[in-house]
Structure formats: structure tokens, C-alpha cells
């Protein structure tokens, strides 16, 4: 017999394996290593917190979560239903324009909302032309912390539910409304008994994304002064100087959000079955709405579009013109350049890494690798502020352990900032690529092997060309997030390095929200552009 051991891995395989594993571990290490490595519940603040605050913070977080889920569910599914099955004025416009809500970061929506409705705010100025001051002050709605946070989060996040539900409707083989009518259902019954259940997996995926964003949100709730789990993390550190409790809370949050992740991937798997049965796509004949219904459908979509996109846009435009400030032209150019630099480097790195690890997981069929690569997407679920601190601590730990001095290259540098983005946004690219990979038949790889291609040649000649266009999509998705990102940029950026979000934050933190209008407008502009690009390339209804 042969003395040689089973040569399961050749040189290329082994290199792919090692690199994929290193990438995954590097992405996991700061989060899990730092957070889990520094946990203790025997602290002063934790005792105080668990006795008095924990219950309230949890309740607040859950209340916000449930309300936001409920509203995004309603807005997302109903608008998707209207634009998918009915014909009414501007329906083709709404189909895509509702996605522009992604261009508004929740915190900027919060600035808008509060600036508009506060005492002597924009709304007051408008009403002042018609009404007496006393009357206005008595009718101005009082947006408490709850209402403000819920509205801001719901109207900027419902797009997830909308886009996923809509693509699920598009994939259906038959016109569900016709089927329902044949069975003698009323329109109401058709919606609740046929249409909603048919899109259930998509709706759940959308809602779990909304849930993760809501739980990880810090900017909006802290702006409105609401105490939630994330602000609890913040308080334990800022007021009690107690990072350990902050880590405990981060871990609890992470655990909760990971559960959502698991649910999401579970539903994603189900959705695959769901779609694979409908190989015969047929273009749905849309139902032409008549009379009042036509107007109501239009009004519904228009109202959402108006509030979610035009309202913040107009408010920012209004402020830019009424409070012309010292924003100089050169600075705007330099910030644009900064943003492009970040987008370009970070997206390239993120896409390359996630492509490589996806490739490794696919061709090596290693359980260890797929476990770690799945864990490495957890960064999306963690508040940016926690990630940044984890990164700082991580590099200092590495230096101490290995007697290096690499931290100065990663803390307060472009490299460190990009590393932060990689951890936070890795999942976007990873999941986009994974979804496409799942659709590529495994026999494609096998055929290539049998035609004599080695693994790297498969990567270069087969997988790369197949995935190319999806890289562009991932690039756009990551870019939208980077443009909007605040906490990581704020903490890890190099000296004198501003982005539109840090600029807007600086202004807003000095209570000069009006002056934050110009940078906010640029965030909206950039994101809208990227969204329109993505619509143009990927989301137009295929015939």
C-alpha cells in the first residue's frame, strides 16, 4: 500500500484555504476577540444597570423594534403590492423612486423632523404667514423621543421590505389577483390570503434587515434622547467609564441580532425553493384602477415618496438657502475627493476579500471555513461605535502580544478606516456574491476541473467573468453605506479628514442643524446617484 496520506489538499487548495481562513478570522477577531475577551459582570455599573435600567432599556428597544417593524411592514408591502399589480398615474415612477428613501440616513431624517416641527422651527415659519403664534404653538405636534425615532427609522428603512417584496411579486408565475378572483375572493381577501403569504419569505428577510438596522442604530435614538440598548452601551462607557459592561451589553445585542441573522438566512433558503418552482415567468397584466381607488393609490405612494425623500430633501434645500454659511467651495471639492477615495479603496478591498472567501468556501467544501466565513458577516449587526473601539483595542493588543508597532499604521489612518468599513460592510458584499454563487450550478466548476483548469484558473477564467456585473452591484451597495456611515469614520479617520457625514455631525452637535444642510444634501445627492445607477443596471423589469 501507499504510505502517503490522503492528499486532500494540494498547494493551491492549501493556499486558498489558508488565505480564506485568515481573511475571515481577521474580520471576526476584533469583534469577538475584544468584546468577548473583555467581559465581566462584576462591575459597579453593571449591578446598578441590571437593577434599574436594564428592563427599561430592553423595553424601549423592543418597543422601537416592534413599532418600526410594523410600520415598515405596512408601508413596504402595501406600496410594493400597489406598484406591482395595479396601473395608476406615475406608477412606473413610484416603482423606482420609492427606493430613494435609502439615500436618507435615519439620523438626517431625524434632524429634518425635529428641525421642521420644533417650536419656532420651519413649520412654524410657514404657518406664521397665516396664523397667530399662540394657535401655532398649540397645534404644533410634539414629537417625543419615541415618535421621532420610530418615524425616522421607519421611513428610511421601509425600502428593504419594499424592494424584496416587490422582486418576490415579480417572480411569481401567475397573476395572483386573477387566481384569487377565479376562486371568488374579495380584493381584501386576495391581499391577505394570497398575496401576502406568497411573498412571506421576502417580507421576513426585509423585516429582519430592518430589525438589525434598528437595533444597531445609535445616531437616531441618541439624537432624540431615547434610552435604548445602544445608548446603554454608550452610557456605561461615557458616564461610568466601564467598558466591560459596555462589552456585556454589546454582546447581548450581538447575540440578539445574530438570531435575526439566522432567521434571515433560514428564510432566504426557503425563498430559493419558493422561486425555483416558478421557472415560467409571465408578464403580469396589471389591473387598471378606476375612480377613487386610482387617486387613493396615487396618494398613498406619493405621500410615502414625499415624506421619505422629498421632505428631508426640501428641508435641507430650504436650510441651505435661508442659512447660507461659510461652506467654501474648495472644502466641498476636497470632501468629495475624500468620499470617492474611501468608496473606491474600501469597496475594492471588501469585494475582493468577500469574493475570495466565497470562492474558497465554494471550491474547498470545508466546514471550518464556512463556519468562520458565516460568522464574519456579524459586523453588520454591531453599532459602528463598538466596532471602532474594538479595532483600536485590537491593534494595541496585537502590538503588545507580538511586540510589534503596527497600531500607528491602523489607528487614525486610511488603512484603519478601511479595515473598519470591511468589518462593518463585509456582509453586504459577502451575501450579494454568495447569492449569485448559489445560482451557479456546481457542475460548472466540475466541468472546468475536468477540462484541466486548476482552482485559480477557475477563479480567473470562470467565476470572475460570471460574477463581474454583481461586483458592480455590491460596489454600489457598499458605496451608499459608506457615504452615510458616521461613527467609524468619526473615530478612525486620519487627521483633518472630513466626509460629508462627519461634517454634518459636527454642525449638528453644535445645534447648528441648519448648517448641516449642505453636507447632508451631498450625502443625499451621492446616495441618490448611486441608487439611480443601481436601478439602471439591475432593477429594471426584465421582459
Amino acid at each position, binding site marked *: 500500500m501507499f504510505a502517503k496520506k490522503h492528499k486532500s489538499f494540494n498547494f493551491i487548495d492549501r493556499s486558498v484555504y489558508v488565505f480564506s481562513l485568515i481573511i475571515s478570522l481577521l474580520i471576526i477577531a476584533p469583534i469577538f476577540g475584544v468584546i468577548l475577551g473583555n467581559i465581566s459582570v462584576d462591575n459597579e455599573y453593571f449591578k446598578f444597570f441590571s437593577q434599574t435600567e436594564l428592563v427599561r432599556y430592553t423595553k424601549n428597544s423592543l418597543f422601537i423594534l416592534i413599532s418600526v417593524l410594523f410600520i415598515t411592514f405596512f408601508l413596504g408591502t402595501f406600496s410594493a403590492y400597489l406598484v406591482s399589480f395595479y396601473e395608476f398615474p406615475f406608477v412606473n415612477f413610484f416603482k423606482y423612486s420609492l427606493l430613494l428613501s435609502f439615500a436618507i440616513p435615519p439620523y438626517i431624517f431625524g434632524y429634518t423632523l425635529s428641525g421642521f416641527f420644533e417650536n419656532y422651527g420651519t413649520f412654524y415659519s410657514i404657518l406664521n404667514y397665516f396664523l397667530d403664534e399662540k394657535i401655532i404653538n398649540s397645534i404644533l405636534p410634539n414629537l417625543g423621543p419615541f415618535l421621532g425615532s420610530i418615524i425616522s427609522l421607519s421611513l428610511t428603512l421601509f425600502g428593504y421590505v419594499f424592494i424584496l417584496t416587490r422582486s418576490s411579486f415579480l417572480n411569481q408565475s401567475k397573476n395572483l389577483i386573477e387566481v384569487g378572483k377565479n376562486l371568488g375572493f374579495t380584493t381584501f381577501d386576495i391581499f391577505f390570503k394570497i398575496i401576502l403569504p406568497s411573498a412571506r419569505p421576502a417580507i421576513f428577510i426585509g423585516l429582519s434587515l430592518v430589525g438589525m438596522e434598528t437595533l444597531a442604530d445609535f445616531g437616531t435614538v441618541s439624537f432624540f434622547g431615547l434610552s435604548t440598548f445602544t445608548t446603554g452601551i454608550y452610557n456605561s462607557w461615557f458616564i461610568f467609564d466601564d467598558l466591560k459592561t459596555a462589552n456585556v451589553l454589546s454582546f447581548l445585542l450581538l447575540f440578539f441580532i445574530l438570531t435575526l441573522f439566522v432567521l434571515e438566512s433560514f428564510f432566504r433558503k426557503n425563498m430559493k425553493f419558493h422561486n425555483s418552482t416558478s421557472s415560467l415567468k409571465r408578464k403580469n397584466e396589471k389591473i387598471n384602477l378606476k375612480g377613487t381607488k386610482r387617486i387613493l393609490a396615487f396618494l398613498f405612494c406619493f405621500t410615502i415618496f414625499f415624506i421619505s425623500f422629498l421632505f428631508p430633501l426640501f428641508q435641507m434645500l430650504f436650510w441651505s438657502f435661508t442659512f447660507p454659511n461659510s461652506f467654501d467651495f474648495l472644502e466641498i471639492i476636497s470632501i468629495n475627493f475624500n468620499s470617492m477615495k474611501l468608496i473606491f479603496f474600501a469597496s475594492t478591498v471588501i469585494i475582493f476579500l468577500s469574493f475570495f472567501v466565497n470562492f474558497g468556501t465554494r471550491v474547498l467544501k470545508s466546514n471550518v471555513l464556512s463556519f468562520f466565513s458565516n460568522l464574519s458577516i456579524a459586523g453588520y449587526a454591531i453599532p459602528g461605535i463598538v466596532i471602532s473601539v474594538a479595532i483600536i483595542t485590537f491593534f494595541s493588543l496585537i502590538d503588545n502580544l507580538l511586540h510589534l508597532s503596527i497600531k500607528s499604521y491602523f489607528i487614525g489612518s486610511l488603512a484603519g478606516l478601511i479595515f473598519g468599513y470591511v468589518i462593518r460592510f463585509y456582509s453586504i458584499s459577502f451575501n450579494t456574491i454568495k447569492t449569485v454563487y448559489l445560482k451557479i450550478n456546481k457542475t460548472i466548476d*466540475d466541468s472546468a476541473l475536468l477540462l484541466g483548469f*486548476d482552482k485559480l484558473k477557475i477563479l480567473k477564467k470562470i467565476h470572475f467573468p460570471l460574477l463581474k456585473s454583481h461586483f458592480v452591484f455590491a460596489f454600489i451597495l457598499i458605496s451608499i453605506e459608506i457615504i452615510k456611515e458616521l461613527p467609524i469614520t468619526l473615530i478612525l479617520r486620519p487627521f483633518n479628514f472630513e466626509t460629508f457625514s462627519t461634517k454634518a455631525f459636527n454642525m449638528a452637535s453644535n445645534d447648528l442643524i441648519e448648517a448641516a444642510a449642505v453636507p447632508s444634501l451631498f450625502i443625499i445627492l451621492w446616495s441618490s446617484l448611486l441608487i439611480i445607477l443601481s436601478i439602471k443596471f439591475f432593477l429594471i423589469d426584465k421582459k
Partner: protein
Amino acid sequence: MKNFFDVKNVTFSSSSDHKLIDVTFNIKNPGDIISILGPSGVGKTTILRTIAGLEKIYKGEIWLNNSLISSKDFFIEPEKRGIALSFQDNSLFPHLNVYQNLIIGEKRKSKIKRKIKLEECIELFQLESLLKKFPHEISAGEAQRASLVRSLLSNPSLLLLDEPFSNVDIGLKEKLQVNLKNLLKENKISTIIVTHNYEEAFYFGGKCCLFSKNKLIQFDNPYNIYHFPASQDVANFFNKGAFLNAKVISDNELEHNILGVIKGKFVRKFKKGDIVKLLVQPEDLIHSDKSNLKFKIIDKRFLGTNFIYFLKVSAKEILPVLVHSHHIHQHTINEYFGVKTPIIIKHLVCF
């Protein structure tokens, strides 16, 4: 002398439940074609994938051209085996058009000097009109043809074909089968072809492996498999004959309680007085309108040149009888049908 290709006591298993235990077969000379036959789900594809190196083995050895390619401790990467596999489902690269797909494997260096011409293949497998189309624009049958040609052009030392014509229209299929066999023979390409259709298996295969229930149940030439099935399972696979319970009464006679004495040569030896199961195939019995031995027709099937009549012999025994379709007159269901006596069956296949 050693065989060109050898599978020795291999247990095949894929990630799913398919498992084939202790399988041994071979290709004697380079250029020979063997076929693998078996019901769907038995694991035929797993065998090909394992030979190609896409699955590993934990028992037995596989040898090609005097070198070991797979065993429990040894494994040659699929890309280095020089074995081509044409998959049953569409495995064309979606980003390349059909022409680019065909030539992508052409460059492979092969020890075997052989010239299969691209133009010739395109003509033989009728791909002219497809060359500029992309995989998603062509039918499953067309994709199979293209993928077959791609495998051929890669100059393999061993070609594996997994149901190569399963999606091709019947009319075209027979023509392509002839073209393929001629091409393989002309160029002396050693081939293993997997199919669940025994006619295809018999057409291509100098030898056939027949699998059933986790086992290789017979490895032999097609004639022997059909006429001298090694077990009841083999006979059952073709599902044409029927089994009758009969008693051995001499070294060339059986007795059945209704049909009476049946004469013939025993393929296997039995003792006098043994109760056996006799395989009766449709062409074994001869129809005679004059015969006194008549049975009720309970079903009838038209096969083009022939009819098969199904006769009810007893409550549990139904016999098929083949009759040429130009036979003077046809019989209808519920009529009585005569069987020529005495019954003589050339080979008595009993179990």
C-alpha cells in the same frame, strides 16, 4: 496483461445516501466502450464523478493506464487525470457562447496523439446554428450536445458520458448515437457511458455493468446480460419477461402445472424435483391459432413491428407473447389465444 482501466473492490459513495459496495469492473483495451446500466437513483452518476476525481473513495482502488488514480490513501486531482466527463445537466459556462465553450478545453495537453476535428464534431452533432448563441438561449438537448462535443475535443484518455442523449429528441437521438459510436471507435476513445436505457447501453457497450440495490449485479457483454441474467434482479431490470413456478423433472425438462412440460437446455444445473422460477421472455412462446392450449388475453401492446399479448395463465401468472404485427389476424382483449405446444425454450433461465 493488465487492463487499460480497472475498478477494484471500490465502495462508491457521494455525500447523499447513494452507496455502491464492493464494485469491480474494467476496460480491457484502450478504445473499448463499456456502459453502466441501472435504475435511476442507484448511483450511476456517483461512479462517473468518482472516476473523474470529483468524489473520493475510502475503499478499493481505481487504476488508469497502469497507474493508480484513486484509493483510500491516494488521490490525483481531477484536473490532472485527463478524464473528461460530460454532465447530464447543462454545464456550459454561461458567460461564453457555444463556440467559446467548445474550444475552451481544446488546449489541454494530452499524451495521446489524436486528432478530433472541431469542424467535424460541429457537423456530426449539428451545432452549426448554435455557435454564436449563449447557453441560456439554447434548449437542454442542444446544451447536452455542445457539452458532449466539448468533452470530446478536450482529448481525454478516458471519456465519461452521463446520459448523453437524455434530453435529445428521439428522431435525432438515433442518428447522433450512430455518429458518436463511429467517432469513438475511429479515434479509439475509451469511454464509459451511463444510461438507464438498456438499448442504448447495449448499442454502445462492448460490456455492460448492471447495478441494482447497492451492488454491481452483472458485468458482462450485452447478449449474456439479456439472455443469461446472473440473477433474478438482472432479469427484473429489463422487466419484459415473467416468472413461472415450475418443477425440474429431468436434465432438460420442467413441468408447470398448467402449461405442462417445457423443454430446453438448463443454463444452470438443478436437481430433479427442485422447484424453480423459470424466466419466460416474450419471444420464448410461439403463437398458434390451432393449439389447444388457450389463455384469455387481458392486455395487448402495439410495438410497431410486433404485438405483445398478455395472457392470464393463472390468478398470479401472466405471460407475455410476442407476435409479428403482420400476423394474419389480430386478437382482441378477452379473446382466447393459442400457444404452440409442446413448449420449447432454447435456454431455460431458472433461479
